[in-house]
């Protein structure tokens, strides 16, 4: 029971401080891997991969997954509620009392500083995910997974081509799963 409260509390905090949507929850989830033994970094990469390739907002999927991983079905519901409740409260307060919230001088100024920081936080988290996904962490040494790195580089390159940016992410994900099976990644 105490663990459930802890889970709720941690995700409540994430819901309250993760500014910038789904990807912004990633650095917080990484904090959790260091703070508790709920899930490992390796499991977190699986969560991200699954959350990206299933319907629903990334942030919600990751929260549900993390909760289920930690404490089963009930854990999934608790973590998701924890994540969502601050949003409901904050948004209703803003909709009710703060006309022109996003035009407010102080809000604008604060976000002028928060946006580059969120970019930095997400960048750091993504590098962590890349490290675990593209390298085998065995002992002290990092063993590169050559095939995975190549595929990642090719797709990142393709994503920079304007015409290909319209392609739905799920198409990339499905083709990569097939490539993975065919070439025995």
């Amino acid at each position, binding site marked *: 029971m105490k663990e459930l409260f802890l889970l709720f509390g941690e995700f409540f905090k994430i819901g309250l401080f993760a500014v910038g949507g789904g990807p912004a929850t990633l650095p917080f989830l990484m904090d959790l891997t260091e703070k508790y033994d709920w899930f490992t970094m390796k499991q977190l990469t699986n969560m991200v991969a699954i959350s990206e390739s299933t319907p629903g907002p990334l942030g919600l999927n990751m929260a549900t997954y993390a909760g289920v991983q930690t404490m089963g079905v009930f854990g999934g519901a608790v973590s998701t509620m924890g*994540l969502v409740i601050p949003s409901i409260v904050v948004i209703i307060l803003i909709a009710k009392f703060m006309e022109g919230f996003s035009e407010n001088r102080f809000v604008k100024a604060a976000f002028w500083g928060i946006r580059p920081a969120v970019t930095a936080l997400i960048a750091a988290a*993504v590098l962590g995910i890349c490290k675990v996904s593209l390298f085998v962490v065995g002992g002290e040494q990092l063993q590169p997974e050559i095939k995975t790195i190549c*595929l990642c580089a090719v797709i990142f390159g393709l994503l920079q081509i304007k015409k290909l940016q319209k392609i739905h992410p799920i198409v990339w994900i499905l083709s990569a799963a097939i490539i993975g099976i065919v070439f025995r990644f």
Partner: protein
Amino acid sequence: MKQYFELFWAFFRIGGLTFGGGLSMLPMLKYELVEKKNWVTEEELLDCYAIGQCTPGIIAVNTATFVGYKKCGIAGGIFSTLGMVAPSLVIITTIALFLEQFMGNKWLGHALMGVRAVVCALMLNTVLALAKKSLISPLCIVWCVFIFLLAMFTEVPTILLVVMSGVFGILFNGYAKGRKSE
């Protein structure tokens, strides 16, 4: 009661049929809420998107709460959000429970390795897009690098970094603006 159920169902469909959330959800939101249901105008939807981006939490959830509240008050906000949350909860819980059992499967392992490669590419791409949008002045770049180093090499909690950045913005934004107008 019927209208609450309608809100729930509309957001249930949106949550269950879009991948990725956030920005990738906008076309679907527009189709369901503006064109099909006429619940909000396109301008209102974009406004609420802007608010969703500068308030904490998942953008899709913020948008659902906002539209639901506009339509039917607090209960409307809650029902919309529950609708958005329900598909994720069901789909992910099912996968999370069963996937562990299949984790040893060789083929699933190969497929997941491939998926990981794409996920890395997509995420790196997200970072690039964010950087283009957020690094609008030299001071922003300096701050971004500073926070990046703190996040990579120190144990400073993420919450503290976010709060610090808000304070930094309030203190220095005027300075940056003043220089621009000169």
